[in-house]
């Protein structure tokens, strides 16, 4: 324990064991992570840091430990995507329009974390209102991927929208972070940053106090450096909430128990529609490797078809913007947030929203408003919701034949922060493999499994049936063990 920052880089499991054994105090742990944040400042992973609060929470945590009262996340420093309302702490959704918003209430998910003993290190950077796949749309500047290509020193995108959360975990600044996933916003940045990300079943976590983007798709989830850690964090986050009637009243399993369960004789589905001519060879190869690893563990590979896969993304880009256009109508400068004053109420609305929202948010609100407007509702929104049912039915049929589905997480590796800036659709295509599970409300995990030719992380995705997150951990652990992904990014501060 001599080196100054030896506590940085510990996993959640190691922290749990260390605190139980009295190897260090929470205060020491938190102090080290505060220093780590300073060293990684250039990653711009945080929008708001909370070192004083963290120290205070650490002291309280040490008190609890002295009384042998340890929660499942006792003393664990976490970063929280700035989309979760934290009481008394500025919450911005990475938008100018909420730059000065301080909630008087705590989101259910973060309340669960503090109840389990976790310590808040800060609010993590993200794409504005969770709309994006790069963290470029944040009003506070992009978060930067701790990974760099072997060939150059370009700043790369950490992915999005939970880019800050993934970057912070990847760089070792925190052992765990929470994000939200609407179309891939946990899994895709996790894959880009070489860490684990989980989107649970829709309804597994409460959405109360989580700033809404697309109500029928949003779900909170953990980002960690190991599958085991993700199981622990997800269990702490989950649970029914009477204030969110879309949250389900089901007991939360002890996810950790499933990590060591054998997958012998179980079936892994390989959907043919995820293979296309444009899929980079190295990703296809990694996907194949994943299948082989499962076979080596005793599972059987089964070819399946999810025929409506390619329609998931365009239908998502009708449903999500439509819901968002309505969810974001409350940002009007009247009750909270930024206001551009004007003598006319209508001008005040338009100017406030015109300058408070960034370009991507405006685009999506416009699309959403358009597809819901008179004359277009049936043609777009209803049509997209019908396609959505077909996507769900594809998965339901597949899960009659297999126990889990294996796909690549993304069709690409991380890209330069300056790339892909001019074409929104090209950016949307980042989510082509993650969106189908979102539209069907199914749980999915991304596990870092390999490196691209340029030395950037690549992830594989597992999709399970509804409420079978345990299967994600059961299979995910095998993938992680076989992949032996241990490389750390160049900006790692552990």
């Amino acid at each position, binding site marked *: 324990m001599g080196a100054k920052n030896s506590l940085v880089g510990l996993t959640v499991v190691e922290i749990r064991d260390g605190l139980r054994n009295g190897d260090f105090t929470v205060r020491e742990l938190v102090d080290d992570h505060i220093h780590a944040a300073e060293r990684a400042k250039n990653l711009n992973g945080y929008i708001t840091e909370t070192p004083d609060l963290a120290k205070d929470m650490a002291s309280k945590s040490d008190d609890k430990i002295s009384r042998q009262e340890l929660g499942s996340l006792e003393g664990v420093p976490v970063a929280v995507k700035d989309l979760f309302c934290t009481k008394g702490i500025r919450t911005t959704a990475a938008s100018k329009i909420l730059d000065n918003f301080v909630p008087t209430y705590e989101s259910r998910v973060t309340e669960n974390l503090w109840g389990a003993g976790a310590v808040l290190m800060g609010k993590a950077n993200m794409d504005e209102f969770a709309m994006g796949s790069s963290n470029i749309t944040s009003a506070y500047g992009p978060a930067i991927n701790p990974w760099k290509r072997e060939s150059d020193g370009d700043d790369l995108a950490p992915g999005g929208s939970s880019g800050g959360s993934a970057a912070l975990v990847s760089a070792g600044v925190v052992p765990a972070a929470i994000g939200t996933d609407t179309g891939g916003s946990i899994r895709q940045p996790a894959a880009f940053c070489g860490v684990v990300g989980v989107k649970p079943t829709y309804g597994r976590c409460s959405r109360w106090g989580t700033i809404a983007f697309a109500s029928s798709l949003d779900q909170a989830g953990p980002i960690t450096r190991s599958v085991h850690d993700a199981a622990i964090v997800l269990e702490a986050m989950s649970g029914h909430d009477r204030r969110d009637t879309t949250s389900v009243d089901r007991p939360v399993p002890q996810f950790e128990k499933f990590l060591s369960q054998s997958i012998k004789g179980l079936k892994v589905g390989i959907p043919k529609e995820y293979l296309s001519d444009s899929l980079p060879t190295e990703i296809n190869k990694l996907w194949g490797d994943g299948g082989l690893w499962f076979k080596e563990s005793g599972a059987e590979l089964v070819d399946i078809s999810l025929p409506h896969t390619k329609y998931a993304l*365009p239908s998502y880009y009708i449903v999500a913007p439509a819901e968002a256009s309505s969810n974001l109508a409350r940002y009007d400068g009247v009750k909270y947030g930024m206001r551009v004053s004007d003598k006319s109420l209508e001008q005040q609305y338009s100017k406030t929203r*015109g300058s408070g929202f960034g370009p991507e948010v405006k685009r999506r609100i416009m699309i959403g408003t358009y597809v819901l407007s008179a004359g277009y509702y049936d043609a777009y929104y209803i049509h997209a919701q*019908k396609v959505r049912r077909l996507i769900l039915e594809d998965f339901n049929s597949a899960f009659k034949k297999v126990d889990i589905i294996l796909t690549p997480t993304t069709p690409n590796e991380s890209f330069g922060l300056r790339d892909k800036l001019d074409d*929104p659709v090209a950016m949307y295509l980042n989510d082509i493999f993650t969106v189908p599970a979102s539209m069907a409300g199914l749980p999915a995990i991304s596990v870092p499994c390999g490196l691209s030719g340029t030395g950037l992380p690549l992830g594989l995705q597992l999709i399970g049936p509804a409420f079978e997150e345990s299967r994600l951990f059961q299979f995910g652990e095998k993938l992680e063990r076989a992949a032996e992904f241990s490389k750390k990014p160049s900006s790692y501060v552990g």
Partner: protein
Amino acid sequence: MDLDKETVASVAKLCRIEIQEQDLTPMAQELSNILSWIEQLREVDVSSCEPLSSVVEAELKMRDDTVMDGDLAEDVVGNAPDSTNNYFLVPKVIE
């Protein structure tokens, strides 16, 4: 699907987002691109299908008729850019 400037302007009005005159055409272009890409959904035969509005297979949960909230005027109005005596203030609306 090609949107023209006028449509963009009226959509912007519906969602109360100010778009400067010079930005109308670029916005129309961007939105048209997105909508054209979405058009591929027409290929899907949805004739036998009901729309899916929720992936949750559950009953709508209800609550009892008890007063267990409110009485937090300071919290409600506390973040408002303009308020007085616990009223929100906005520019006067003429009807």
